[in-house]
Each structure stands twice: as C-alpha cells, then as structure tokens.
C-alpha cells in the first residue's frame, strides 16, 4: 500500500494542513499529522489545487504523431498541472467510433501520466452530414460524455438539434466550435480595420456569435446541455450571459491565448499567432477576462494545438491554426484572476481550471481537491516562482508557442494522479 503525507499545503481556503494519501485516496486532512515510515512531501508555501482538467486538448494521435503523441501531450499536461485532458476528435482517423475512442483512452491509461478522455465526434468524419454513433462511444470503455466536431462547426441546425437531443440519453454534452463557415470563407484573421490593411481575409465576430445564439436557442428548445468552445468575442460573452439569464443549460470556455493576446500580433505575419477562432481586439480580451471573473465564462480550456515546424514556418495563409497551451494555461488563469495588488483568487482559479470542467464533463474522480475520501488527483503550485517560456524546453513534441521569453507566474511543483506523482519538484516523473 502506497502512503504519502503532504505537509503544510495551503488549500483553497483556510490555513495550511497536512494531507494523508493512502492507496491513491485522501484518507485524512488535519492541522498536523504525525506518522512514522511514510513518504513525506514538504509543501510549505505551496497552494493545493484539485488536479487541473482540460476540456479541449489536441493530442494528434492517431494520425499526426510527428506533431504530438498521447505520451508527449500527457507529459506536457502533467507539467501544466493537469490530471485529466479531453482529447479532441479531429484526429486521423477521426474519433467517431467506439474503436477509435477506446484506442485513445487505453493508450492514455497505459502511459499513466494523465487521464486521457476522448471527445467523440458529433458527425461521421466531422463532415456535418450525419450523426456518429454517439451512444456506442458513450457505452465504450472510454465512457465518452462530451462530443464535438471541433475544428469544424456543426452548421446544419437540424442536425445540431438532433445531436443535442440524442445525447440526453446518456447525460452527454455537445461542445460546439461556433463558426458559420459561410461567413468565414478564406478567413485568415479577425475581421477588422487591421485585416483590411494587412490584406488578409477577415473572420467576422458575427460568424461566431450567430451560431452561439442559434445553439443557445436550440439547447433551450430541446432542454439539453450545450458547451461553447473557445469564446473569442465580446458579443459572444453577451449572448452567453443572456442565455444563462434565460436558464439555458449552456457553459462556455475561453482559451489562455484569447485572454492574453490581441490581433495586433498578426501584423508580424508570424504564423505562431494564427489560431481559430482568431485573436481578437483588446476590447474583446477585456470582455473575456471580465466574463471569466464574473462566471459568465465557466472555464479556461487550452485548445492545445501542437503543429509540426513545417506547418508553422511557412506563409501565413498556408499555416495551420493553433498554438500550444497546456503548460501555460494555469499561469494565464492566475494572471487573469489576480487583482491589481497581485492577490490571486485561488478559489476561482480552481473553479475555472478544474472543478467546473470536471462537472461539465461528468468526471466523478476529478475536480474535487482536498476532501477526505476523494481520489488524490492534485496539483501543488508555488505562487512565488515563475517560469520564462522556452519553446524547446516544453514537453510537447511541437514548439509552436507564442509565449517565448514571457515570464509566467506560478510554477507547478507537483502533480499527483491517484496519489502517484506525475510531476515532482517541477519535473516530469517519467
């Protein structure tokens, strides 16, 4: 039986405590626990968070293992403080059958660095034409509860309605990539005065907002759960706020990069900044930050999108959209949820990076934190340390981060998955 004693970790509320973990489960929490012959972890000065949960990760396996594998992505996730990640379905083959989702799930279990939970495709081959076997994926060993054609929008309103209705049978949720593709033909960046000047076709905010409005109404009509991926505009925030006020069962995520970066960076034509949805204006960033603080936006999701060098070191128009995020998301959440004096709202950090994502995905054993009887899926963060981003020092197989040289606050010192270290002293264990 494995036993660990974490000493003097600071939970989200209250004074530092000792935490006893036996066989992967938190068995005791007290001011002081004195035991002989157990592994002791000195956690003085560290903040204890429930292990982070990402609802939006691209692991590229199967199909593009040159950009990322489940193993390298899992290691990046663990170093970022994650104990569970949801692997998006736009792999090759697409994760649209029980076979593919089980393959992804089992590979993640074998690696054992993080729980890899597949997201099932909503439609066969992400083509938006007919529903994939959602029930078979839900019934599989992977127990899929979240479905998304991410990268593509389920554009057909009739099909979207059916998807929303169908997943009610197993308490599933449809995660929509909100983009009316008829409004984004050839789009390369946010549609704005800047896109006009740069000669890049614009991706207008209304292409996102119109789909969110439509889908909120559809979810209300059929009484289903809807999750909106990567909100990027102030208008989208207003629509989600309105829908929630009507009682629609809608949740929304924002990415770290949409909380930090603005479209002005595109003027460099550096494809590191190319992402879908695109980087928006400063006013959008402000609205997204405000919405994350006030709860209109429920969670931070990374949209971790590794790409091989040749897919980024090329002309802007030909570059693939997306950037890395797993190892910086927590820092950006900390930045966003700090007040002017630098004090961090750790409770809210935990809610947006762990507690709410776990509940949206219906995970029973994540997003709980320091509770006796709960699985020890935990993250210990040193708020006094920071990390300067070095793209080549990241664990991901790809290096497409826009944060090179930036100092990121807070450092993940330890991540525990079911009581076992996946990260210790800031280093991956395997």
């Amino acid at each position, binding site marked *: 039986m494995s036993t660990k004693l974490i000493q003097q970790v600071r939970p989200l509320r209250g004074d530092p405590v000792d935490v006893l973990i036996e066989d992967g489960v938190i068995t005791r929490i007290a001011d002081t626990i004195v035991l002989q012959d157990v592994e002791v972890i000195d956690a003085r000065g560290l903040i204890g968070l429930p292990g982070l949960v990402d609802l939006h990760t691209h692991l590229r396996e199967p199909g593009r293992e040159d950009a990322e594998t489940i193993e390298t992505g899992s290691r990046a996730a663990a170093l970022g403080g994650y104990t569970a990640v949801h692997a998006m379905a736009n792999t090759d083959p697409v994760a649209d059958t029980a076979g593919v989702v089980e393959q992804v799930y089992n590979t993640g279990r074998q690696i054992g660095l993080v729980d890899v939970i597949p997201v099932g495709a909503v439609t066969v081959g992400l083509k938006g034409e007919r529903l994939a076997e959602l029930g078979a994926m839900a019934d599989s060993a992977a127990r899929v509860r979240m479905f998304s054609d991410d990268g593509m929008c389920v554009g057909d309103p009739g099909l979207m309605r059916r998807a929303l209705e169908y997943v009610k049978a197993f308490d599933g949720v449809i995660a929509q990539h909100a983009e009316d593709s008829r409004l984004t033909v050839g789009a390369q960046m946010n549609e704005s*005065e800047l896109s*006009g*000047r*740069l*000669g*890049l076709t614009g991706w207008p905010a209304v292409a996102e907002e119109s789909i969110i409005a439509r889908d909120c109404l559809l979810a209300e009509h059929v009484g289903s759960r809807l999750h909106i991926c990567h909100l990027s505009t102030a208008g989208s925030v207003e629509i989600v706020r309105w829908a929630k006020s009507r009682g629609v069962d809608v949740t929304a995520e924002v990415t770290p990069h949409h909380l930090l970066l603005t479209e002005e960076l595109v003027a460099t034509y550096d494809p590191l900044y190319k992402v879908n949805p695109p980087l928006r204006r400063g006013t959008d960033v402000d609205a997204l930050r405000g919405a994350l603080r006030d709860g209109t936006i429920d969670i931070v999701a990374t949209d971790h999108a590794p790409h091989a060098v040749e897919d980024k*070191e*090329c002309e802007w128009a030909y570059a693939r959209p997306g950037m890395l995020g797993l190892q910086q998301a927590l820092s950006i959440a900390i930045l966003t949820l700090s007040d002017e004096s630098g004090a961090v709202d750790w409770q809210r950090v935990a809610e947006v990076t762990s507690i709410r994502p776990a509940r949206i995905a219906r995970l029973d054993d994540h997003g709980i934190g320091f509770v006796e009887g709960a699985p020890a899926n935990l993250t210990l963060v040193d708020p006094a340390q920071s990390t300067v981003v070095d793209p080549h020092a990241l664990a991901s197989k790809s290096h497409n981060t826009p944060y090179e040289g930036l100092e990121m606050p807070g450092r993940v010192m330890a991540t525990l998955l079911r009581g076992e270290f996946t990260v210790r002293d800031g280093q991956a264990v395997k």
Partner: protein
Amino acid sequence: MKQHLLSAADLTRDEAVAVLDTAEQIEASLQGREVKKLPTLRGRTVVNLFFEDSTRTRISFELAAKRLSADVINFSAKGSSVSKGESLKDTALTLQAMGADAVVIRHGASGAPWQLASWVDGSVVNAGDGTHEHPTQALLDAFTMRKRTGRSMGQGLDGLRVTIVGDVLHSRVARSNVLLLETLGAEVTLVAPPTLLPVGVETWPCAHSYDLDAALPGADVVMMLRVQRERMNASYFPTEREYSRRYGLDAVRAATLEPAAIVMHPGPMNRGMEIAAEVADGPRSTIVEQVANGVSVRMAVLYLLLGGAA
C-alpha cells in the same frame, strides 16, 4: 532607402520623391542611347522569385535589373522544387546560400515578403503579395501622375485629386497607392460598391464613396482597378452588367471628367467591364505609359536598395 521595399508605407516623402527623381534621371540618361544599359549593378545578383504568374511584372523587373547590368535569375514556382513541396523558408535559404543581393518576390499569400525578409540577408522587394500590397506599382503610378501633370523633379503630388475605382477589397494596387499617394500629398477617394471596400476603410488616409458619377467631375486622375473573374460569381455584386453600369468607365462617364484628367489602369484590363475600349485607348489613357514607366521606377528601386556599388 531602407534595406527592403515591402510596403509603400516604408517610404518617407523624401524617399518616395527620391525614387521618382532617380527614375527620371535614369530615363534621361538612357535616352538616345543605342544600348539601353547602365553598368551600375554589375556583379550583383537579382533573383525574381515568382510564386504567382505575372508576366508583365516579372518582365518589368527583369528588364530593370538587366538594364542596370545585374545578373538576373528568374525563379518560377511552377516546375521548380517548390512544386515538389519545398517550403518558402527552404527556398530562401537556398537563395541566401547562392548569394542573392536582392530578391524580388511575387506571392499569392499576403505577408510572404515579410517572412522572406526575416530569412535572407539581401534586400527584398515586394512585387505583389496576395491582396495586400504592390509598392512598385504605386511608385510607377505616382511617377506617371507626376509626369502627366507636369510636375518636376523634387516635387510630390500635393493637391492632386485621385479617384481609385473598383475592387479595392482584393486590390494590392489600391492599398499601396493609398499609402504612397497620401505620403506624396495627393487626395485619394476610393469608389466601389460597399461589398468591395475593406472593413475599416474609414480609418484609411483617404475618402470613400459608393457613387462613381459623383466622384468623377472633381478628379485629376481616375484609376480603374481590374475586377477579377472569380469575384463575379461570389456575390460581391449581382451581375457583370450591373457592375459595369454602376462602376464601369465608359465614354459617357469619361466625358464628365475635367479636360486634363487622366485615366489609369494597372492592367490587365477587362475591356467592356470596368473600362470601355474607347476610354482605354483614348487620349486620357496612360495605360501604355504606365508599363514603360514601370521599368524606370523598378530600376530606381533596385539602384537605391543595392546602393549602386559593385
């Protein structure tokens, strides 16, 4: 001049006027010569890197470099290593290794010349990138305007009223012209249906209008833009006929222009669509002159970028 010419906005007024003056000097020095060649760039290598078909621009740059006695290499993406999958960066590194002093790049992707400039040591000249810019076209247009309106060396285009008509949204010529003409003191009005004006055009240093008939009488220069065939089926306007009626420059409209006003077009033209044949071939038209002036202006640009020394 700076190391590269990527955007018309790279040029200060003095630099832009210097290019026009140099072009005029080059033209004068070649006049009457049997061999139209200067030894200025002997020993220098200029690479024409064309990822898009553009016979007229490529030949213009080739002729400009050759008249300055540079060694010229034409690199077309078709049938080259690029068509076998070589990336722009690999191509750039190859050119770098071969010691290219200047690379003239035409590319279908906006921003490609900026990326190239970050990978090579030599000068990069943007010969048209996507729907973004075409600064030497703007320079040759300004050169043509200055000559046609009787302005002399050292002068800009102060107070000149220029109306640019057509598919501004997709036009690199329009973008570069707006920037350069503003630098040189001209007053620009863009005229197009709302669907063919870029978002945010109201922040550009020019006026805009949807009404061609209202814009013509006060103009000293009318520049017609080519409407690309593929736009005609993409609902930017209902039909070719309607576009032509509302935004085409026919003889009746041309008659409303000031007597001294000139008509320009970057070519190639859709005769009968954006411009009527009798206007294109009429006395106001500068279309053939623009082509000739292009060589002089591009010689000036290469000369100034490469410093002239062997």
